[in-house]
């Protein structure tokens, strides 16, 4: 911990420098924008990342002298996390750096009658512009995938999608010069290798650290083992906005570069804990298209831009989507505490509801995910009331290894079926050593009823969860046959779409 003195939060807002202190560390970016800056174009529709009305565009150094840009939900981002970053809001979108697509989009929205009450509109404008700016508006489907985290209750979306398509066709101007200049400006306002912020909140004094390298993180967390780690804040943000929890020490790990790599060694992939869902998406899709499709439907783009792979595991949720998908793949987890590193099978991390195998001061470093072998078949299917941006009622992921016709190993992992993401050991045992045929599926379905007693809640009843889980085994079997029934979510194209 080299730097003990508290610093102001320094960032650029619509191109202007800001240096802020005196705000509680858990002040959300949205509140700051609306109440302190009086930039009221950015709206609050839910304060939990689900409606997109609060979308702003964040830029930061990518570590290689360039810029990384992504739209996020301002309602669940904490203000100190903006240190060293640049924020663009709907009022000045792109204008201060010569990116002129925003006006074309605005015009297309107005002329195309894409706003009615207008409350959702700024969020759509920022999200569409940012997606275009980031090269993600490739076609109509991409437009829809990019706005699946933006809710509109009035229009029925058609005119918004049309406006997005108009923008998608517009060539992106070359802003490299401006980007480099912005990167340099951001470099100039960095606060050093460890940013440290102190504040007073209504719940008491607060301390915020943002280290840039993993050793510093290990040191700081060692010294403050009760601290809350904040990665993408897509969970932690809600602890503040929804549960109104007081957090006193926070460690922002979103700046730790060592945690942001994706690497491949000998057919095994390594995802740093800080890799965002957006960054992980393509590599996951490359393992199997079902994973790409799952990630396309995982939250909305803004949440995927902030939320991390590590956070999706570390939060220990029984309904997180990545854990079952990765458990089925045989993933392993790397944990570090101080100087000590250990590795364990991912499923072992989830001890019971609300309890993980993680010591105070210990953090997730990376995930190790083996690719599929030629003799392995994989299947992942997310079931939710709404296809996009919904928490799963059931997340099923299966990997079967075949020895000729016979199943030699079965990994059947489920989310939403128990207090933790869990493998179906009875059903797995039933499947091994025999062909994966209708009879085997029927037996495995019966065994599933021994593996799980799922709960009933607002997402689904116990009976439905079990029935759907059982039927997904049959679906997997059918998908391995010539019949290959299409999935409903991607029905129009008849096949899964792997990129977003």
């Amino acid at each position, binding site marked *: 911990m080299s730097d003990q003195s508290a610093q102001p939060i320094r960032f650029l807002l619509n191109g202007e420098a800001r240096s802020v202190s005196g705000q509680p560390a858990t002040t959300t970016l949205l509140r700051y924008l609306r109440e302190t800056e009086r930039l009221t174009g950015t709206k609050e529709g839910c304060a939990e990342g689900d409606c997109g009305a609060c979308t702003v565009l964040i830029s930061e150094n990518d570590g290689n002298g360039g810029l990384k840009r992504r739209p996020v939900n301002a309602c669940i981002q904490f203000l100190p996390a903006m240190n060293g970053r640049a924020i663009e809001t*709907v009022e000045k979108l792109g204008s201060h750096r010569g990116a002129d697509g925003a006006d074309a989009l605005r015009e297309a929205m*107005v002329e195309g009658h894409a706003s*009615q009450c207008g409350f959702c509109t700024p969020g759509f404008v920022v999200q569409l512009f940012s997606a275009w700016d980031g090269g993600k508006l490739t076609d109509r489907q991409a437009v829809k995938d990019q706005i699946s985290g933006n809710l509109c209750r009035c229009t*029925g979306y058609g005119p918004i999608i049309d406006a997005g398509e108009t923008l998608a066709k517009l060539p992106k101007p070359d802003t490299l010069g401006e980007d480099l200049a912005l990167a340099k400006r951001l470099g100039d306002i960095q606060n050093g290798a460890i940013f440290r912020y102190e504040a007073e909140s*209504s719940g008491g004094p607060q301390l915020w650290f943002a280290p840039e390298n993993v050793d510093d993180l290990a040191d700081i967390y060692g010294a403050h083992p009760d601290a809350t780690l904040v990665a993408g804040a897509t969970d932690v943000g809600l602890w503040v906005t929804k549960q109104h929890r007081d957090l006193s020490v926070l460690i922002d790990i979103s700046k730790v570069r060592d945690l942001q790599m994706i690497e491949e060694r000998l057919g095994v992939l390594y995802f740093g804990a800080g890799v965002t869902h957006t960054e992980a998406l393509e590599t996951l899709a490359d393992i199997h298209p079902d994973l790409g499709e799952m990630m396309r439907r995982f939250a909305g783009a803004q949440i995927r831009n902030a939320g991390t792979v590590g956070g999706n595991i570390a939060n220990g949720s029984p309904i997180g989507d990545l854990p079952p998908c990765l458990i089925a793949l045989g993933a392993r987890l790397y944990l570090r505490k101080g100087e000590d590193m250990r590795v364990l099978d991912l499923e072992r991390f989830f001890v019971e509801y609300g309890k993980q195998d993680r010591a105070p001061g210990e953090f997730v470093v990376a995930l190790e995910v083996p690719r599929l072998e030629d003799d392995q078949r994989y299947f992942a299917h997310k079931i939710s009331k709404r296809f996009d941006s919904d928490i799963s009622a059931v997340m099923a992921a299966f990997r079967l290894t075949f020895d000729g016709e016979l199943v030699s190993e079965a990994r059947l992992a489920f989310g939403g079926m128990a207090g933790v993401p869990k493998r179906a050991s009875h059903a797995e045992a039933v499947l091994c050593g025999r062909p994966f045929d209708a009879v085997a599926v029927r037996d495995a379905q019966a065994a599933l009823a021994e593996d799980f007693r799922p709960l009933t809640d607002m997402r689904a009843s116990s009976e439905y969860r079990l029935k759907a889980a059982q039927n997904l085994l049959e679906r997997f079997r059918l998908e391995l046959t010539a019949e290959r029934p299409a999935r409903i979510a991607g029905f129009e194209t008849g096949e899964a779409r792997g990129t977003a």
Partner: protein
Amino acid sequence: MDETRIQDRSGAGEPSIAELGERPPTHERAIKGGVHTKRIHDSGVKHVSGAARYVDDEPELPGTLQIYIAMSEKAHARIVSLDVSKVRDVPGVACVLTANDIPGQNDYSPVFGDDPIFPQTSGPEALVQYVGQPIFAVAAETIDLARRAAKLAIVEYEELPAAITIEQALAAAGEAGHDLLDPHEMRIGDVDAALEGAPHRVLGRVAVGGQDHFYLEGQIAYSIPLEDGDVLVRSSTQHPSEVQHNVAKMLGVPDHAVTVEVRRMGGGFGGKESQPALFAAVTALAAVKTGRPVKCRLDRDDDMEMTGKRHEVTINYAVGFSGNGRIAAGDFSHLVRCGYSRDLSAAIADRAMFHADNAYSLPAARILSRRLKTHTVSNTAFRGFGGPQGMVGIERVMDRIAFETGIDPLDVRKVNLYPSFDSDRAPGVTPYHMPVTDSIIAELVEELEVTSGYRARREAIRQFNAQSPVLKKGLALTPVKFGISFTTSHLNQAGALVHVYKDGSVHLNHGGTEMGQGLFVKVAQVVAEEFQIDIEKVKITATTTAKVPNTSATAASSGSDLNGMAAQAAARTIKNRLIDYACGRYHVPEEQVVFAANRVLIGNEEKRFADLVGEAYLARISLSSTGFYATPDIHYDRESASGQPFYYFAYGAACSEVVIDMLTGEYKLLRADILHDCGTSLNPAIDRGQIEGGFIQGMGWLTMEELWWDDKGRLKTHAPSTYKIPTANDRPDDLRIAIWEKGENRSDTIYRSKAVGEPPFMLAISVFSALTDAVIAAGDGKAFPDLDAPATPERVLKAVEGVRG
């Protein structure tokens, strides 16, 4: 160009009338933004730049306090004691409000006086009746402080038995010996005899869930104390006059002491009709008590727990029909889940009954409606106002008859449609004894059948299903007939206020509110058309009770019908004065004063509109007028359950195609074709927006939007994380929307247009019927499914399992 030429400053010299008009008028062929044009939304440019201001965006005055409302944790309980002393002691808390602080009436209900702002703190009325019911409020320097302080209150409850579901409500009503509101029955013909005599008869039941409005902007009110104890309230409301009245009633002051203003809402959908009065009242009370401005902006979860929703309804039906599918008699009973209080439930349950026939002429019918009390939030207005629930019943009947007879569901629907207004057949008569004299539904359905390619697609789907073991498709074409007018007849009135300034610019105000539906631009188009001036010359202004009094809610799709007429009347009064002036001054007969695009032809002369206005001002002609409109010819007698409650009907039809997965119950809407009647549309672009938005919202209601209460009466779907409204990918890419080109209102409405806010919502019933069709296919046509709404994947799978036995 049109700068003011008339200076009032003394010394500038008296301008003479002759000096005006020295610049020749321009000669456009038509004005910009007249009626029947696709004018953009007046706030569109502001929406996309973030400049459009909603209540929370207005700068707060210094000293503004924030309100947190503490809510009941019990569904039904007596409050044994409420101790807020610790709350009061928290530094930064300006005041704590309970029932004891209310100087006037402790009620924010629209009609019946049974919605307490806060429960009494002792005595028999110290009662909470739903989880989320406000108990007390804290006004503090910040919302965090207010929320934190509220936690220090000590509330002691004595729990009482609670009815959460319709079944429990029925049991409780049986015990109590009465329902929340008296039952109502409509009846035509001899139903029992007709049922008895019909060749075929079936009984069934369908349950239809409620719906949260999920307006993107939550409930909000901001009260500013004025002198004399008056208050100015900025409220996000569809009903400023009612908010005004309820605030005044609560404060114990005359209505004139309270002014309510609303520029725009971030969505309303009925959820901002009776609900906003609560938040307005709480802020006004705190403002008067503290002398400081006070804001209450609800968090989304609090909003969803505290405010009313669409009524859940269970419909039992018995229907008799002949071999060709023609209905002989329909007997419906509606069990309506009203929540804890009456609110607008009487009128909503009535409207469900008014639409139990939808577009079908029933020779004999009986509709019985029971309005049940549950210990849940009081259900309220929501787009369609009960109509959609009523319609689902008869559309289910159509699907059922088709199943029983083996006739295509479309053909069953067609033999039962109301005869066309121009057909040889006598008009059909509704179960409330109103002849349907404007029906165009048969022709419209016929046209959609062709343009949607219904028959060919029916065949293609049959083939698809025959060779697809896991996925099944379904298709349905359903009509909509929706009655336009408030069924409470006196509400069908509206006022407007128009000023013409001496530079020729116009200030427009009326009693309607803007929630995104495009009312303001439509009414501005009417005024522009009347004066024949470009729409930019017409300033649209915030609705306020200080300019137009005693308004009705902007609801029942009536906004443009009523306010358009009232504004036209106001403009016409001024226009007539201008004509009179011109006739007198230029000695021409009336018919030689003609308003053309931005100019006025007077005999052989032409003047710019602004110049004529300037002249009229100098000639001391009044350039301001109110306008008023009351819908003619409507009445309904509740005693005899008969009358003419609607001025006219709006029609439409939709054809939807879905695919379901028999293993998971997942489904998708693949294509929808819509043909909708807007009369001669005032603004086809705005109307199209209402059609698409209404359809998708209706689809959400019948498919994924599920309200889920636990057995303690706690709503567990109280945020977008758990309550799922449609997203962009739920909208089918193949969505073909057409406005019926032959549309013309047979009643004398504003430019013969038709109301369009609610009717398209019900086009989504086609999706529900298509899902039913697909589930029938999943059972190889052997059984009729038991599919309730919302048809979540879980319900679809259950229905599939049901038909497969």
